[in-house]
Structure formats: C-alpha cells, structure tokens
C-alpha cells in the first residue's frame, strides 16, 4: 500500500480548504470500499486522503411527501436499504440496495462514494436514474445541482470538478407506480451484474403514460435509454411494442467483452431483460 497522509476534517468547510490546498494530490474517502482497492492496485495514488466520516449529518436520510427523498452522500447502502421511507415510497430503491454486494460491503460503502466513483458496473445508479434523481455538488464557492443521468461522463469519470464534493442525492416524489429491477448474474449471485436494468412506468388503460429506463454494466457509463423510452411513451402497451423498446435499448448500449460475458451476449441479454423488466413494471403499474 502506498504511503499517504490522513486527514479527518470535522466540517465541510475544512474539507474544502484541504481539497483546495492539496488539489490533485488528494482523494476523499467515506466508506473506502472502492478507494482502498484502487489504491492497492495503484490505479489511484493520492498523497493525502481526506475522510468525510466526521462531517456531521453527512449520512442523513429524510423524506417529505412534497419534496421526496434526500440522502446525504455519506449514507451507506445498508442504511438506505433499511430506511422506512425508502421501503414504503421507493420500493425500486429498496430492492436495488438489497442487491448491492453483500451486507458487509453495504455496511461500509456509501452512496456518495458509489456515485462519485462513476463505476458503470454498480447497481444504484440505474435505479436512481429511473427515479429522476439529481445530485448536489458543493464546493467552497457554492452549490449546483446536476441530473444524475448527466453526472456520469465516462469510465470512472463524473461531472465533479476540482474542489467539489457530492453532498446530497435528491429523489423527487415518485410519479410512476410501476417498477422493476433486474440484476443478471450468470455466475455467482454475489457477482457484479453482467447486465442491470431498472424501469419505472406509469400506465392508464393499457397505454404507457410515462417511462424511465436505466441500465448498468452495458457501457462506459450508466445508461439512460431515452430513445427506448420514446418508443413506448404515449403508445399502447403491446408485446410487440415492448420488444421494439428492448431492441432500441440495446442500440443505446456499448457493452464490452469481459469475464462476465462477451459484448454480443450482453446485447442479447439487454433485449431479453429490458422486455422482461418492462412486463413486470407494467403489471405492477396496474
């Protein structure tokens, strides 16, 4: 393991001044589950590691019916999984966070750390996109809000700028009652997803009023499949329409070969799993 200095600021203000002081030499740590592995593999070699765990209220989860869910970036996956308002109002999130890694990782890893790492293989991002989530990015100069589907830029690259921290995730009040989440793991159940699909849908009289579709592990970022959504939005829900939507979704993805499957196999899976997720979501919507 490389040598580094470890700092534990007790306020966001102190964290920002440390970030400004050390610039590219610094990395922040919350749970540390992914940073530690990247440091061990020397993919990241910060000289200073700044812990955010002593910052008060950084892990709060609050819910208001007219505002929705606000999750502090320091909340760990397990807390979100077990949160009563999440279970009650956002069953898609409850289901998703149940499936993230295993309990030991969910006890340590934080949602802020997960999203800020920009890892396209992980589960929360697709479901949060399907719920129109946005993230608050804070720096010493102020705050800005970015839609989550615009936050992921490339492999392990996000819209975070130097000196910025992801401080909050906002999930608006749920508008689409139908939902489905599929995490396809052909080897061990404990693996990363080979393909992950999250859908929310609102229907009326057999027509799709609105829909959101997110996918992970299928491109260099988590995908918001807008073209696929457009195939179904406002149209009658038929088997043919769902198949077409799934076909179009596969064209919005660019999977690669890896030890979980070839790109060709993943494209086949996208067509099958998007269709199945849509079928399940539509059933839940009615």
């Amino acid at each position, binding site marked *: 393991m490389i040598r580094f200095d470890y700092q534990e600021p007790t306020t966001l203000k102190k964290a920002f001044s440390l970030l400004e002081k050390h610039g590219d030499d610094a990395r922040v740590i919350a749970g540390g589950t992914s940073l530690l592995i990247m440091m061990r593999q020397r993919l990241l070699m910060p000289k200073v590691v700044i812990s955010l765990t002593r910052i008060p209220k950084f892990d709060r989860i609050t819910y208001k019916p007219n505002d929705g869910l606000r999750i502090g970036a320091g909340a760990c996956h397990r807390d979100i999984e077990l949160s009563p308002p999440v279970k009650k109002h956002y069953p898609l999130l409850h289901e998703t966070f149940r499936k993230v890694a295993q309990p030991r990782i969910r006890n340590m890893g934080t949602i802020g750390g997960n999203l800020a790492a920009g890892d396209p293989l992980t589960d929360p991002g697709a479901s949060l996109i399907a719920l129109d989530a946005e993230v608050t990015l804070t720096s010493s100069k102020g705050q800005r809000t970015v839609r989550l589907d615009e936050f992921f830029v490339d492999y392990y690259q996000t819209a975070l700028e130097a000196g910025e921290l992801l401080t909050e995730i906002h999930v608006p009040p749920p508008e689409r009652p139908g939902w489905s989440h599929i995490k*396809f793991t052909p*080897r*061990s*159940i404990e*693996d990363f997803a080979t393909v992950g699909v999250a859908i929310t849908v609102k229907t009326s009289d057999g027509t799709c009023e609105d829909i959101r579709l997110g996918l992970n592990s299928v491109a260099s970022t988590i995908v918001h499949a807008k073209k696929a959504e457009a195939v179904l939005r406002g149209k009658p829900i038929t088997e043919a329409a769902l198949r077409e939507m799934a076909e179009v979704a596969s064209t919005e993805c660019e999977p690669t070969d890896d030890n979980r*499957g070839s790109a060709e*196999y993943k494209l*086949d899976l996208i067509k099958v799993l998007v269709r199945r997720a849509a079928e399940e979501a539509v059933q839940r919507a009615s």
Partner: protein
Amino acid sequence: MKNAATNVKQQLFEQAAEMLEANPQDLISRDGKIFVKGAEGKSLTVSDVARARLFRHNGAPIVGSGSFDADSVLPDATRFGNESGAYNYGAQAAQVQVDPETGQVKIVQFAVASDCGTVIYPLGAEGQVEGGLAQGIGYALIEGLQIDEGRPINPNFSDYRIPSMRDMPPLQHTFADSYEPTGPFGAKGLGELNMDPTAAVINNAIFDAVGVRVKTLPITPEKILRALKEKG
C-alpha cells in the same frame, strides 16, 4: 491413520501402566480417561498421561506414526494397473431449470450417493460430501481460471468466483451400506469423490432440459445460449 492411532494408544498405555502400577493389557480408556478394567475409580486423564510422558527424564511428546501400503500394481505404458487398495464409487443426480432466452441455469435440487465403506465419523463424512459438491458446482458452472502463457490472469476472488452460500442448491445425500475389507475398520477414501461427476451430471441435465451440450468448462449461460442458437 489407524496404525498411527494404535501407536499412540500403545505409548499412552505404557506410560499409564507405569503410573497405575498395572499391566498395559489390563487398561482400558473411555471418555478421556485411562483406568484398570474394573477399577474406574482410580483413573488418569489422557492429558495427564501425555504430560507425564513429556516431563520426565528422557521424556518426549507422544507422537504416533503409521503407514500403510495397499497391495497395488503401478500402471504400465498401457495405463492399466491397480493403483489403490480400494476404490470409492458414487452417483449424483441433478434437477436443473434452464432459461432458454438467457441460458441461465438454476440447480433445483441435487442428490448424491457415496460409497466410502464404513462411515467412521458421520458429521465429518457429510462435510466432505457437501464440500466436494460445492467444489464440483463451482468448477462446473462458476469458476474459470484463465491462463495466459502459463500465468493465471484472474488470480483474485473478484474475477475468479467460487460458489457462495446462496449459489448452493438444496442437497440430499446418502452413504452406501458397504464395507471395504482392506481398509481400516472397513473404510475407504471419500475426500475427492464428489467433485468428479458434477460437471457431467449438470451438463447431462441441461441436455435433458434444452437439448444442447457444452463442451468446455465452466458451463456458462452464454455458451448454452450460443449452442441453442446454433441448434436453431
């Protein structure tokens, strides 16, 4: 093992006989104690005897050793011979579900029958069966050590997966009622038996379900899907 254990017992009884002023042939041991037959009131614990053997002039820890060479004939160039004194046998059966759109395999249940002669320690033997099966399912469906010019390129548990508790199917197993005359107390080996047939059993079950066979391990859903497509 049996010979080594017998050796240990002999050393213990020699020491205990000295301490009890008795003849080693008159001693028996039960529940961790050694005593003269019929005089259970005056007993020594096995650990006391072992300590006494060590902490004395010319003392030494009690270490038993034994060896056993079965009647065997090394294989010749034709690879026929008789390498071992005894052979163990087993049978496995699997019930699987195959998803024809994704190729994913779910093992619904698994049954194993093993012939290891006398089962000396049932819990231990069951553990061997269950562990062997986990290894078998692992290499049949999940693992896959990738080697490039002699070097493993996925030597970590993130890329090289082994079965977790949730990957294991419901399992039923039984032991054949048999006795191996050349083995200690009629026992034979058991350890590796249940790893051997597993991949073949699963592959056969998949063939029964969807009519395709995979020819390389691990049997992945992708290979099954590709085989299904080629079959048309």
